[in-house]
C-alpha cells in the first residue's frame, strides 16, 4: 500500500513539473501585460507539433527538437503579441479574454485542419528505458521531464533576477507607468515576455507530446489548470507557482488513485474552492482587482 502511495506521489510530482512550466509562462504574461491568455494552451500545442515535425521530418534527436520547438514558439509568441494582443493592451479585461479565446479557437482549428486529428507521439526513445527502485517504476522519459523542468525554471529565475531585461520585467509588473517614466522600452518587454512564455509552453508541450500525445485539442484543459496554479500560487512569485503546481499534480494523482478517478480533474478546482472558504479575502491579498 505504501509503495502505491509513493508511486502515486512520484507520478504527481512529475505531472506538477509540466503544470509549473505552462503556468509560469501564463503567469508572466498575466503579470506584465495584464492579459489572461487563453491561447496559451495553443502555444503549448503548436510547440508539441513543432517538436514532432523536427523529429519526424528532420530526424532531429529529442533534445534538439525540444530546442527547435522552443525557438520557433518564442518567435511565434512575439508575433502574436505584436499582431494580436498589442492593440488591446489596456482595454477592458473582458476584451482581452475573449480576444485570446478567439485566437485559441482559430489556432486549434487551424492545427486540426493542417495537422489532422489523428494524435501522434513524439518518439524520444526514452520511454523504453525503465527504472525500478524500491518497487517504484519510472521511465527515463519521465525523469527527463523532472530534470528539464528544474533546469528551465532555474534559468528563468536567473533571467528575471539578474539580467537587465528581467529587472525591467519586474519593474513593469509592479508599476507600468513608473517603469515607462524610468525609460524602459515597454513594448520590447512585452515581446520578450510573450517569447519566454511561448518557449516555456513549447517545452511543456514537447514533453507532454513525448509522455502522452500530440493532438490539436491538447491545449484547452491545460490553460484552465494553469490558471488554477497561478491563482493558488499567488502572483509574480516563481516559488509560489512551482509549489502550487506540485500540489495540483499531487492532488490529481493521489485523489485520482485513492478517492475517485472520475473526479481527477475536479480536485485542483476543489482545492481552490476550499482555499476561498478558508481565506475569504482571496489569496491575492493586496494585489489590485
Amino acid at each position, binding site marked *: 500500500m505504501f509503495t*502505491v502511495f509513493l*508511486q*502515486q506521489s512520484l507520478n504527481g510530482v512529475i505531472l506538477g513539473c509540466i503544470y509549473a512550466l505552462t503556468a509560469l509562462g501564463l503567469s508572466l504574461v498575466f503579470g506584465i501585460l495584464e492579459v489572461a491568455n487563453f491561447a496559451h494552451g495553443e502555444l503549448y500545442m503548436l510547440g508539441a507539433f513543432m517538436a514532432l515535425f523536427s523529429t519526424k521530418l528532420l530526424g532531429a534527436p529529442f533534445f534538439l527538437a525540444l530546442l527547435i520547438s522552443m525557438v520557433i514558439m518564442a518567435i511565434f509568441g512575439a508575433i502574436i503579441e505584436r499582431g494580436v494582443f498589442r492593440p488591446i493592451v489596456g482595454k477592458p479585461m473582458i476584451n482581452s479574454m475573449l480576444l485570446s479565446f478567439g485566437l485559441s479557437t482559430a489556432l486549434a482549428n487551424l492545427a486540426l485542419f493542417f495537422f489532422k486529428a*489523428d*494524435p501522434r507521439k513524439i518518439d524520444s526513445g526514452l520511454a523504453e528505458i525503465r527504472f525500478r527502485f524500491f518497487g517504484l517504476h519510472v521511465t527515463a522519459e519521465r525523469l527527463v521531464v523532472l530534470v528539464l523542468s528544474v533546469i528551465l525554471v532555474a534559468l528563468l529565475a536567473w533571467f528575471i533576477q539578474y539580467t537587465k531585461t528581467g529587472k525591467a520585467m519586474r519593474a513593469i509588473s509592479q508599476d507600468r507607468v513608473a517603469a515607462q517614466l524610468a525609460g524602459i522600452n515597454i513594448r520590447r518587454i512585452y515581446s520578450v515576455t510573450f517569447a519566454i512564455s511561448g518557449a516555456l509552453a513549447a517545452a511543456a508541450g514537447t514533453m*507532454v507530446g513525448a509522455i502522452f500525445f500530440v*493532438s490539436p485539442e491538447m491545449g484547452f484543459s491545460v490553460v484552465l489548470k494553469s490558471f488554477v496554479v497561478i491563482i493558488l500560487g499567488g502572483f509574480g512569485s516563481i516559488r509560489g507557482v512551482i509549489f502550487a503546481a506540485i500540489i495540483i499534480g499531487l492532488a490529481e494523482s493521489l485523489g485520482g*488513485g485513492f478517492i475517485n478517478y472520475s473526479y*481527477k480533474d475536479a480536485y485542483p478546482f476543489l482545492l481552490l474552492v476550499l482555499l476561498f472558504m478558508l481565506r475569504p479575502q482571496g489569496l491575492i491579498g493586496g494585489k489590485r482587482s
Partner: protein
Amino acid sequence: MKGKNWIILVAMALLLTFVPSVYAAIPTGAIKIGVVMPTSGTLAYDGGLALNGIKMAVDEINKAGGIKGNKLELLIEDSAGVPATAVAAIEKLIGMSKVSAVIGDFGSSCTLAMMDVAQRAQVPLITPISLAPKITEQGNIWTFRGCDNSEMIAKAFTKWAVKTKKLDKWAFIAVNTDYGRGSVEAFKKKVTELGGEVVFTEYFQQGETDYYPIITKLKATKANGLCMFGETVDLSRVVNQFYEMGLNEKMTLMDPTSGTFNPKFIELVKDKANGIVGASRFVASIKTPAAKKFVSDYRKRYGVDPEKYAQAGYDVARMVAMAITKADSTEPAKIREALSKISYKGPQGKAHFDEKNQLIIDEYIIAIKDGAFQIVAGPISAE
C-alpha cells in the same frame, strides 16, 4: 475607425444574404444519403475510418453506374461526438436536404440521441459502429445496427478467454459512455456465469491522457487479465502506461471490441501491442475472396489496411444501396422495409437483420503479433 466598422457590417450582411443561395445550388436527381460522423473532436480519427469505408462503397457503386442510372450522393455532417450536435446534424439532413436514409453515428450516445429524430421523421437510421445493446432494445423500427453488439461479442469472447485462455480474475478499464458501460455490464455477466471473478472496474472520460492513477491502483490487485473498452487513441495511452508500470508481466491485455486492432494503434504503441487478444467481426487477414478484394481495393485507395470501422462503413453503405435497389424507390419508408429483409454478403461474410434490426454476423477471436492481426479462432457463428 468608422470606415472599418461599416465594412465589417456590410460584409456580414452580405454573407448572410449570399449563403442561402449556395444551398439551392445542390444538383437534383441524385439519391441523397446522409452521414453523421465525428470528423472533429476526440473521435475524429476513428470516425474518419468509418467515413473512408462509406466513401469507397459509394464511389464503387457510382462507378458501376449508380442505382438504376441514378448516382448516390453523400451529405456528410460532423457530430463531433456530441449528442446535441448529432441531433442538429440529422435534423438538418432530414429537414433541409431531404435525405432518403441516414448512416450514423459513431458513439452510442450520439446514435441514441438521434434515434428519436429518425423515428419522428420516419427515415431509416443505420449505425455502422455503435455497440451499446440498448440501441436495438427500444423497439425503434427506424433504427438499424449494421454491426455486432457488445452482448454478441461478450458471448463469443468470454467463453474463449475463460475456458481456453484460463483468465479468471478480470479487471476492466472502460470509457464512461453508453458503449463502455454497456460493454462492461455485458462482459461482467458472462464472466461470472463462466466462473470467473471481476476484481477491478474503472471508467475514464473520453480523451483522457493520464491513466497513471488507475494503472498504479491496478498494480495492487490480483487480476490476471485486463479488459479494455475504448477507442484507438485512449487505449493506446492505457497500453503505453500499462507497460511503463511494468504490468505486462502480470496480466494479459484484452480488447474484445477490438478498438485497438488498427495500424494507427500499432504505430502509437509499437511492439507493446504484441499479445493483445480480442474479438472482431473483421480483420484484414480474413482469407475469403470477397475480403481479399476489399482489402486490396482499400489499400490501393488509402494506403493502409482496412479495419472493422472501415469495413462497417463500407458494408453499411452497400446495404443501404442494396435496400434502395430492392425497394426501387427513394422513399424512406420503403427503404426501411427493404433493409429489414435484406440478405447481404460482404467482405466479412453473410449478414442479415433480426427482428430487432440487429445485424447477425460471425465473430473471430484475434490477436496482435508483430503488428499483424492474426485469427486465433473463428468464425464463431452468432446463433
